């Protein structure tokens, strides 16, 4: 009898602990179809490079990355996340470009008690009241980069600004960020239909009539080049300087160069990272990325590369025991890994406290268009929502 009981107990124990962890399974959600797939491709290339750099292993375990496509749509992104959790049974979920996709998908991962790492999206909700002990962001909170931009505008003496951004979670955060720090006058603000609107004739005419000192914009992905092209065609590029965040990057600049649109050279933006930042991790990342793919990595790529290195630091801290969520969480809060942005620390809401720099579009030694990092605009900056975050 006792033997039987022991036997069944052992059997139950076997059932309870899912197949002994012989590898680390990471689900990576990004956009692999639709025109925005160019971003997903850049992120996937960076993740592949990171896996190559660590020899395909974390703490001696094989790493398996399962890519999932959000189809640039929050519902599809949520379904992709559900598949990762329920059928692929991944240990950690990472990725997410779009704030609206992340907001829809986060509960799926967090309700399962698993760790979620955003490699791009940083919506205000998850940084503030809805922060979660198992949610980490390895990029930035949406408001931070435009807050740096507002400060940059103050420093260069812009007195009036016109804001144009898409009407969705991130677009609203970007505009709010500039409004937070910019001390001059906001003389116009247009929130456009996202993602379908690709012609800004009406908004550009309004800008022309308003005659601002500068225009601030945020159009990630393929919408960015279209906006800037129309800005030039409307005759605004020589008249009103354009300031942007997350709009000109290593994905769009080659397209501009191919089309010979020199108006973007000298354009200023703010960012936490740039391809020419001088630290060991970044030199290796950028050089190997260029050698492997023949182009500059974008900030999306930098963040994706960092997210794999970040996960590695956590897996190593728990010596490969992927079920030790508490242990991994402690390691993730330390953020002790060589980031391509240089040293930074994690805030109480699990968003980075880091520097933001001025970046300018320049021509590199080979004649390719890229961005060069300039002075620090915001030092050790924490997002404005952190104080609303009450973690257990």
């Amino acid at each position: 009898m006792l033997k039987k009981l022991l036997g069944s107990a052992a059997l139950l124990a076997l059932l309870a602990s899912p197949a002994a962890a012989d590898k680390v399974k990471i689900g990576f959600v990004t956009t692999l179809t639709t025109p925005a797939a160019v971003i997903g491709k850049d992120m996937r290339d960076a993740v592949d490079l990171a896996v190559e750099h660590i020899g395909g292993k974390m703490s001696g375990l094989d790493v398996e990355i399962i890519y999932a496509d959000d189809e640039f749509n929050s519902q599809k992104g949520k379904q992709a996340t559900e598949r990762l959790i329920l059928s692929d049974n991944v240990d950690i979920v990472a990725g997410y470009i779009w704030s609206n996709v992340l907001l829809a998908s986060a509960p799926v991962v967090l309700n399962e008690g698993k760790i979620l790492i955003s490699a791009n999206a940083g919506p205000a909700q998850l940084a503030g009241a809805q922060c979660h002990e198992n949610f980490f962001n390895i990029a930035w909170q949406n408001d931070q980069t435009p807050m740096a931009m507002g400060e940059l505008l103050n420093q260069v003496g812009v007195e009036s600004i016109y804001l144009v951004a898409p009407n969705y979670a991130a677009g609203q955060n970007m505009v709010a960020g500039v409004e937070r720090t910019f001390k001059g006058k906001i003389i116009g603000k247009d929130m456009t239909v996202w993602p379908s609107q690709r012609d800004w004739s009406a908004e550009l005419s309004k800008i022309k009539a308003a005659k601002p000192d500068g225009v601030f914009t945020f159009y990630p992905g393929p919408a960015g080049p279209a906006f800037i092209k129309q800005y030039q065609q409307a005759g605004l590029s020589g008249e009103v300087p354009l300031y942007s965040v997350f709009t000109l990057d290593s994905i769009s600049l080659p397209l501009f160069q191919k089309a010979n649109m020199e108006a973007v050279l000298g354009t200023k933006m703010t960012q936490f990272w740039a391809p020419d930042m001088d630290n060991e991790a970044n030199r290796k990342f950028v050089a190997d990325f260029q050698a492997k793919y023949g182009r500059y990595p974008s900030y999306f790529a930098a963040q994706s590369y960092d997210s794999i290195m970040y996960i590695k630091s956590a897996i190593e801290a728990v010596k490969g025991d992927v079920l030790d969520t508490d242990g991994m969480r402690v390691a993730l809060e330390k953020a002790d890994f060589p980031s391509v942005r240089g040293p930074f620390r994690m805030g109480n809401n699990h968003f980075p406290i880091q520097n933001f720099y001025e970046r300018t579009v320049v021509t590199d030694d080979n004649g390719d268009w890229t961005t060069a990092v300039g002075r620090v605009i915001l030092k050790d900056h924490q997002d404005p929502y952190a104080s609303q975050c009450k973690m257990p």
Partner: protein
Amino acid sequence: MDYVLLTEQVLNGFQLGIILFLMAAGLTLVFGIMDLVNLAHGSLFMIGAFVGGTIALLTGSFVLGVLLMIPAMLVIGIVVEMTTLRTLYPRDHLDQVLATFGLILFFNEAVRLIWGPEGLVVPLPSWLDGVVALGFGITYPVYRIFTIIVGLLVAFGLYLLVGKTRIGMLIRAGASNRTMAGALGVNIPKLFTLVFGIGAVLAGLAGLIITPITQAAIGMGEDVLILAFVVIVVGGIGSIRGAFIASIVTGLIDTLGRSFLDDILLFFMPSNAAESAGPAVSSMLIYILMAAILFFRPQGLFPPKGAGG
């Protein structure tokens, strides 16, 4: 009221209307005359942009891109019609929707394979770049004026083709009574192939014309297609004249709504609410128009003469 801004916005609305017209003209011909629901019309818009854009980049001449795109799209349109759509005419509309939806997936994937996911940026020749002064302090991009002129020329050409030529007569005859026209010796299948080819050229032209403004991207036709369906429903299915007028009206409503609605809403609500309600309501305006037309005049504003069931 700022008259310079108002004039510019009217021009913007007109220009959007012209693009819609190029798209809707082909759609209304195919839907009205051949009784075929072609969801893949948006794909033809995209193919025109990629094919014409590639020719323009290779030859270094945008005009050459436009001129060579026309025969290319005619051939593509005819091939699609003969290989896929021909078998669908006697079938139910639902079958046509399903099959042409399949075509959308096919074309999107084909473009991804050939051109990659990043799309195509087509630069403008220097004489089309920049702005021109129209007097009274109004400046307007040269290229957008060029679009308006091309669109008006096409509209006039279509008017001549359908109204004054023998082919046009056959098209009208086929539209009003297919069986009778066939009995009188009109080669209906050949006529349909030609109509579809013309529709493909118009869609391709619209796609290529918009490319220097928005750039060519996979799936670029789908959003325009929805607007084009609104236009042909408002204008009356099968009517070129209706499509033209409805396109311009839709373009103007959409653009003027986007530019002035949030200012107007400010009279009724606090600025925060107006800021977020403005874009939402202005993107609804044209659908409200469509709903109103369907309610009061379900056959559309200008239904073609003699078009029966």
